[in-house]
C-alpha cells in the first residue's frame, strides 16, 4: 500500500511541478496577460515573423491556434466555449457562418489598408458588402504533374486524367466538392450543379477514373507528390506552389473546362473579446509589405494588389498562380448549396470511394 501511495504522491507532485513550470512559461511569454489576441487559422498559414512584428508594433500578445478544416473550426466557434478574435474560413464557410449568426460585422473605418485589396476580390457573392469578411488569400483547384512521367499529356483538359497511361498514377485530394466538381467540370457542367441527372453522370464518369487513382489523401498529398509517388494529382493551387517549391520538376495547370476559385478570408467571430485588437490585426495583415512577405512565405496568391506589386516578378508574373482575368472568368466560386445538397454531394463522393478497389 505504501508503495502505491508513494507513487501517487510522486505523480501528483511531479504533475503540479510541471503545471507550475507551464504557468511560469506562460507568464514569461505574456500569454496569460489581458492584452492578448487569439488568431484561429489554418496550420502554418502565416509567416511567424509577422506575428512577432505585430506583437512588437502593438504590444498585443498573439495566441495562434490552428484548425484543419472549416467544419472543425465552425464546430468550435459554434460551441462558444473558446475565445477566438480573428478566424480565417473559406468562402462557403462564411455564408454558412453568416446564416448561423456566428460572425460580427467588421468596422471598415478601422481598416485603412482595405483599399489595397484588388476590386476583383471584393463584393463577392458570399459576402456582397464585405461586411463580415476581408480576403486573405485566394487560389484555384487544378492538376499538378510531373512532365517527364506523363508522356504527351498536358492536362489542358480534365479528361487527360482519365488517360489509360496514368494507371494507378493519380492522387486525388479528399474533398467531396473538389472531386465531384472535377467530375462535373469535365462534363462541361457547373461545379455548383444540383441536377440529379448531371450528378449521376459525373459519378459514372468518376468511377471510370478509379483504375488511375492510386490514393485519395489529405494534406500528405503534398509530400507524396513532391516525392514522385504518382505522376499527377488534383490539388489546391497553394499546395501546388509548395509542392513545386519542394520539387522543381513539377508543373501546375488549371484545366480549360473550368475549375474552382476559392478564397480564405479574415473574419471576426462572435466569440471575439478583443475587438480593437482584431481590427488592428486585420488591418496589419492588409498592409502591402506585410501581405507581400506573407504571400512569399505561404506561397498562396494574395488578393492585395499593392502587395503583388512588391513581390518579385517570378512570383507575381506566374500565370499559374496569378491567372489573368480571362481564366478567372471560367472559374467558379463554390455556392452554399444548403445542407441537404451538400450531404448529397458527400454521399456521392462516398459512393465513388467505395467503387474503388
Amino acid at each position, binding site marked *: 500500500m505504501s508503495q502505491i501511495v508513494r507513487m501517487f504522491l510522486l*505523480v501528483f507532485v511531479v504533475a503540479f511541478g510541471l503545471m507550475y513550470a507551464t504557468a511560469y512559461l506562460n507568464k514569461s511569454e505574456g500569454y496569460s496577460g489581458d492584452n492578448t489576441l487569439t488568431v484561429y487559422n489554418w496550420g502554418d498559414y502565416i509567416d511567424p515573423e509577422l506575428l512577432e512584428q505585430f506583437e512588437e508594433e502593438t504590444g498585443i500578445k498573439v495566441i495562434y491556434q490552428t484548425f484543419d478544416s472549416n467544419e472543425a473550426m465552425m464546430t468550435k466557434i459554434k460551441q462558444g*466555449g473558446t475565445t477566438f478574435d480573428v478566424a480565417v474560413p473559406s468562402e462557403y464557410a462564411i455564408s454558412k457562418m453568416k446564416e448561423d449568426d456566428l460572425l460580427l460585422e467588421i468596422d471598415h473605418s478601422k481598416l485603412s489598408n482595405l483599399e489595397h485589396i484588388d476590386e476583383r476580390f471584393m463584393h463577392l457573392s458570399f459576402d456582397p458588402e464585405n461586411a463580415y469578411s476581408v480576403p486573405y488569400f485566394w487560389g484555384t483547384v487544378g492538376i499538378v504533374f510531373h512532365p517527364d512521367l506523363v508522356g504527351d499529356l498536358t492536362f489542358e483538359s480534365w479528361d487527360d486524367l482519365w488517360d489509360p497511361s496514368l494507371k494507378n498514377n493519380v492522387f486525388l485530394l479528399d474533398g467531396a466538392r473538389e472531386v465531384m466538381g472535377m467530375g462535373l467540370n469535365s462534363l462541361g457542367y457547373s461545379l455548383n450543379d444540383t441536377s440529379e441527372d448531371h450528378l449521376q453522370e459525373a459519378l459514372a464518369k468518376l468511377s471510370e477514373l478509379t483504375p488511375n487513382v492510386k490514393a485519395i489523401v489529405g494534406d500528405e498529398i503534398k509530400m507524396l507528390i513532391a516525392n514522385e509517388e504518382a505522376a499527377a494529382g488534383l490539388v489546391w493551387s497553394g499546395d501546388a506552389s509548395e509542392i513545386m517549391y519542394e520539387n522543381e520538376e513539377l508543373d501546375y495547370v488549371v484545366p480549360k473546362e473550368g475549375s474552382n476559385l476559392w478564397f480564405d478570408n479574415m473574419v471576426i467571430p462572435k466569440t471575439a473579446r478583443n475587438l480593437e485588437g482584431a481590427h488592428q490585426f486585420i488591418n496589419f495583415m492588409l498592409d502591402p509589405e506585410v501581405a507581400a512577405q506573407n504571400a512569399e512565405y505561404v506561397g498562396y496568391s494574395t488578393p492585395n494588389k499593392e502587395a503583388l506589386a512588391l513581390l518579385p516578378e517570378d512570383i507575381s508574373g506566374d500565370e499559374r498562380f496569378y491567372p489573368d482575368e480571362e481564366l478567372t472568368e471560367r472559374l467558379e466560386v463554390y455556392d452554399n448549396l444548403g445542407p441537404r445538397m451538400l450531404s448529397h454531394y458527400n454521399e456521392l463522393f462516398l459512393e465513388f470511394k467505395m467503387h474503388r478497389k
Partner: protein
Amino acid sequence: MSNGKWKLSNLYLIAVFVILYAPIFYLMFYSFNSGGSMRDFEGFTWEFYGEVFQDTRLLIIVLNTFVIALLSAAISTIIGVLGAIAIHYMRTNRPKSTLLTLNNVLIVSPDVIIGASFLILFTIAGIQLGFVSVLLSHIAFSIPIVVIMVLPKLQEMSGSLIDAARDLGASSWQVLTKVIMPYIKPGIFAGFFMALTYSLDDFAVTFFVTGNGFSTLSVEIYSRARQGVSLSINALSTLIFLFTVLLVIGYYFINRRNNRPVAKEGRA
C-alpha cells in the same frame, strides 16, 4: 530446450522488436537531417533540436501534455480502482453486469464519437474548453481501462484471504489497505500505465474538447503536419522517446531492487 530452438525464438523476438521500433528509429534518424525533410538524408545537424528548445509554445504544450497524462492517469486510477472493488463485491448480478457493460462502452467507442459527445456535454454543462475539459475527458476515457486491468486481480484473490483478515479483527479500512490493495497492486500499476498510454496517445478526443489556447502534443502535431511534418517535431519525439526509455528502464530496475525478496506474485 535445445539450443537451436532458443536461437530461433530469440530471432523471432528480435524481429518483433525491430519492426515495432523501425518507424521510431526512422523518425529519429531524420531528425538529424540538414535537408529539412524526411527523404534524402543530406547531412548531420543539431538545428532541429535547437529549434525545439527555442520554441516556448512547443515546450508549454509538451508540459501540458505530461500534466494532463499524469493527472488523468492518477485520478482515473483512483476512481477506477474504487469502482472495480465496488463492482467486485456486488452481490446481485444484474447491476453488476449493467455497470460492466457501460464500463466497456467507452473502451470500444470510436474516439470521434467520444470527442463529439463530450463536446456536446461540456457545452450543455457550460464548461469552458481548455485545461479542465481536456483533463475531465482524459479521466473519463481512462477509467474503464483501469477497471478492466484491476478486476482480474480481484477475481484471482481468494475470498478466504479477506475472511481470514476479518476473523483476525481487521476493520474494513484495514482489509482494503492491508489485504486488497497489496494484492491487486500489479493491476493498479498496469491500469495506471495503460491510462498514461491512452492519454499520451489520444488525438481525436482532445481535438474536440480543447480550446482557449490549450493544446496537447498530438493535436499540435496534427495541425503542424498540414505542411508536412517539420523535423523539429521529429527532434522533439526523439527527446521524449529517449526520456521515456530511460524512465521505464530506471523505474524497472529501481523497482526490482526494492522488491527483490518478494518477486512478482510470489514466484521467483
